């Protein structure tokens, strides 16, 4: 009897059964997969209504972990560079000089200059901070119209690209402003799928407009170039040096055209590797993007060949290339070159150069000129003056004068000094001149114009050098020099607040205020209301007129509702950015600063959600903020709007 042997499983089944099951499982899994595309299709077919169904979730308490900070990159402005952001710029040893004060210059090495009263010769103290006059808002139901944007806005091919979100996600909601961004104030954005954890973004490469190195950066450029310059015998302040600032380590090239039409051969600008290293450290450690100076000194003979009266005009084109991109800028600048002569007083002739607008500690942009000269200490006693060298004092007086020339200002006390203040550095040096060691006093000063003056202010910059001793009551004038000047232009801002909601109770008011970020009041507060009776409140709207340089960090518009009982309820505070750039239609890169921006209108329907409000009368306030920005078209090439226009230095009779 035999036992039947079990039948062997065919090889085909051993292989085929798992294969078939694998195929079946895979097919089922395919249809059960996470398919975003199918969801996209279904959502794309929906209307644009948002899925705002989940409400009432409490605000996270651990904000730093749940809602980390992520600053936006700073605004681009190629014309105004914060001195504090410039790596290596030393501002130590600066003497602050109040308006209408003179500077008592030391005549011995190691001495220090002091500000003094020009009449009594007694030391003066710095005055209280500058405070602009407070404007009165214009009450009106209709804010001023916004001008049409000029044609110099960003060309299509240079428009900053709109940031995109994850490409795999189709938007469920798209704001209507996306269809025509030019009709809306603000900027587009895409909701991320996760918190950005890569730190603040690096601002795009920006190169400043070129400036002459003598405009306060001579020492810094000297350290960058380390003495490797075409004419090392020139002092740093008298070299024809060109400087720019970049916000990323870069390689830079300079080309240009002289005023006589001759082309400037392409040359490379120099940066200091130590500055690059410090930039990297500041970014890595502190996420602070500082500015690096790049300099190049041109051969004196080359510059002199294109100069007249010691001044050479150059239209400079700078190209910068960094690890992240490329940037270029064009600017007009003036180079001073030494003039041959036999001046018994000045070792270096007085030069007055543009410093554009300088941001001081009070947050205001001051139109600034830089003055530089060096005099021979042994040349300050005029023959026959009888001044006693032992008790001799030399005084520098300077002024930005309107309504008179320098003779009128210095001799006849005419005109009005519109200087706000100034800051000086004074250095006493030993130099070998014509084979003889002589003491030279080198004076550098930044002189600030009253910033509340309208853009394009015109007048004279005057400098008087005088000497006296303990026995002489009347000072002896050594030199009276000056030049015609025209300050940089600035944009005008008309910031309007309009109460737009008709359902706002008549017995309620809306208070609008305008200040700078430092709390300086730009305009008095205005009361708005829907009250039909004149005098019960004000108009529906109010406009504050001011200028960009008074509030470069922004105009803070505070809006407060005031109920029938007089209880103030803060509604909203808007710090409106101020664009200090100017409108130059012939500037091919002007769109970077968008100086031709005419403003915008932004409605806000702001809920009154303060816990203090429990009366249920008013749920929200509808206000309209309108910014009308005016920067009449200037000219970049012949009459640069963002710089001073400075005439030739002239000697005035005294």
């Amino acid at each position, binding site marked *: 009897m035999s036992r039947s042997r079990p039948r062997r499983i065919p090889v085909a089944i051993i292989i085929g059964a798992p294969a078939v099951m694998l195929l079946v499982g*895979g097919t089922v899994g395919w249809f059960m997969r996470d*398919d975003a595309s199918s*969801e996209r299709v279904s959502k794309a077919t929906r209307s644009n209504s*948002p899925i705002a169904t989940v409400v009432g979730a409490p605000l996270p308490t651990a904000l730093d972990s749940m809602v980390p900070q992520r600053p*936006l990159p700073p605004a681009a402005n190629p014309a105004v560079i914060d001195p504090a952001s410039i790596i290596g710029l030393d501002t130590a040893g600066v003497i602050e000089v109040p308006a209408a004060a003179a500077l008592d210059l030391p005549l011995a090495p190691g001495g220090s200059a002091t500000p003094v009263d020009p009449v009594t010769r007694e030391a003066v103290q710095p005055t209280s901070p500058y405070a602009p006059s407070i404007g009165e808002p214009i009450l009106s139901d209709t804010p001023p119209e916004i001008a049409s944007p000029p044609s110099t806005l960003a060309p299509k091919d240079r428009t900053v690209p709109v940031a995109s979100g994850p490409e795999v996600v189709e938007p469920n909601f798209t704001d209507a402003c996306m269809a025509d961004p030019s009709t809306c104030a*603000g900027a587009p954005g895409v909701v991320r799928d996760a918190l950005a954890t890569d730190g603040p973004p690096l601002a795009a490469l920006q190169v400043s407009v070129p400036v002459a190195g003598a405009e306060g950066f001579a020492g810094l450029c000297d350290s960058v170039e380390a003495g490797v310059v075409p004419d090392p015998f020139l002092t740093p302040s008298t070299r024809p040096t060109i400087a720019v600032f970049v916000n990323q380590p870069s390689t830079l090239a300079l080309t240009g055209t002289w005023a006589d039409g001759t082309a400037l051969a392409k040359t490379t600008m120099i940066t200091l590797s130590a500055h690059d290293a410090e930039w990297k450290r500041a970014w890595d450690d502190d996420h602070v993007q500082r500015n690096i100076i790049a300099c190049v000194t041109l051969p004196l003979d080359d510059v002199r060949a294109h100069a007249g009266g010691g001044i050479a005009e150059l239209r400079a084109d700078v190209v910068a290339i960094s690890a992240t991109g490329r940037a270029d800028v064009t600017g007009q600048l003036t180079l001073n070159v030494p003039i041959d002569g036999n001046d018994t007083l000045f070792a270096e002739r007085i030069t007055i150069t543009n410093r554009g607008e300088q941001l001081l500690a009070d947050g205001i942009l001051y139109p600034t000129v830089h003055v530089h000269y060096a005099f021979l200490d042994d040349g300050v006693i005029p023959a026959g003056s009888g001044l006693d060298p032992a008790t001799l004092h030399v005084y520098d007086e300077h002024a930005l004068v309107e309504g008179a020339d320098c003779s009128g200002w210095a001799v006849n006390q005419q005109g009005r000094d519109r200087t706000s203040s100034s800051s000086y550095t004074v250095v006493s040096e030993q130099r070998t001149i014509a084979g003889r060691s002589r003491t030279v006093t080198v004076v550098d000063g930044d002189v600030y114009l009253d910033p509340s003056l309208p853009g394009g202010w015109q007048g004279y910059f005057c400098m008087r050098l005088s000497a006296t001793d303990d026995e002489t009551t009347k000072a002896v004038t050594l030199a009276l020099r000056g030049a015609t000047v025209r300050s940089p232009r600035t944009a005008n801002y008309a910031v309007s607040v309009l109460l737009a909601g008709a359902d706002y109770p008549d017995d309620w008011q809306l208070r609008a205020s305008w200040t700078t970020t430092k709390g300086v009041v730009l305009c008095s507060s205005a009361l708005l209301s829907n009250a039909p009776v004149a005098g019960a409140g004000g108009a529906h709207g109010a406009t504050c007129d001011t200028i960009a340089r008074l509030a470069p960090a922004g105009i803070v518009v505070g809006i407060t509702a005031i109920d029938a009982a007089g209880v103030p309820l803060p509604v909203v505070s808007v710090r409106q950015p101020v664009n200090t750039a100017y409108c130059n239609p012939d500037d091919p890169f002007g769109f970077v600063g968008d100086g031709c921006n005419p403003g915008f209108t932004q409605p806000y329907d702001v809920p009154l959600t303060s816990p203090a409000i429990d009366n249920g009368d008013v749920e929200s306030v509808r206000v309209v903020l309108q910014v009308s920005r005016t920067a009449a078209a200037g000219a970049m090439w012949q009459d640069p709007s963002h710089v001073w226009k400075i005439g030739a230095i002239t000697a005035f009779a005294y």
Partner: protein
Amino acid sequence: MSGLGARVALVVVSFVAAGAGWFGARQFGGDATPGTALAAVDLYHCPADGSRSVGQVHAGDEVWLIGVTDDRWAVIRNPDNPDRPAWLPLALVATAASAGDLPQLTCGQAVATATTTLTVTTTTTPTSASASTSSPVVLATSTSTSSTSTSTTSTTIATDTVPPTVTVTTDRAYLYVRSESAPCSSEDSLEVAIVVADPTVPLSIRSIVATWNAPGGPQTANLVPVGGNRFSLEVAANGPAAGETPLTLTATGSDGAGNVGTGQTVVSLRNPGSFGCAG
């Protein structure tokens, strides 16, 4: 290969293969990557303590920024009501905007809350990362007796009992009694600027008056506004009999909390005849 065990093994292997196929197809067949699911982001009307969300947007949504609050919040047009601002974390919005493109927006409730924040920041050292940004400017509200439930606001009001600093400056240290003779005639008017400084706005100038002593007794003169915070002073008569006499300019100003401060400066009132000018 034969026997019951072999058959069972074959079944098990087949089911394992099916499972592997299902998993693989799910895992690799889908085009969604981890983290790109349509995550919801809460929107707030005002990101202050106790706020609750009022809606949501989702990853990939194209929103329109109308402002920011500090470096922490983006303010967008609310999808439900485009004119109504809505807040969401700035770190959850990809944008090419710079700080110059967007206003700093602080809603009413956050204004009140930020009052405390501002006080804190004045006593602490900000980190270098945040040092480059500005705190929102807080406009404190004026005195109120019925806002006791707004603790932060009323705290601000209660603590501001300091009068504003009033500074009076002149464009010259002296002026002449009105004169028709040069050069005194060009200096018989004084321009006076008054600055009222205080963190609690609105600030206002309340009064400005000039006082001096003359042979006829104490004298006063009012000043004429010439624009903004500037006033002009002229003295037509009743100056010193000879030489000069001190003239005191006294100004008062008030802050938003109703505190009143006073400032003074002294200049010289000159008799033109004593300074080479015909009376």
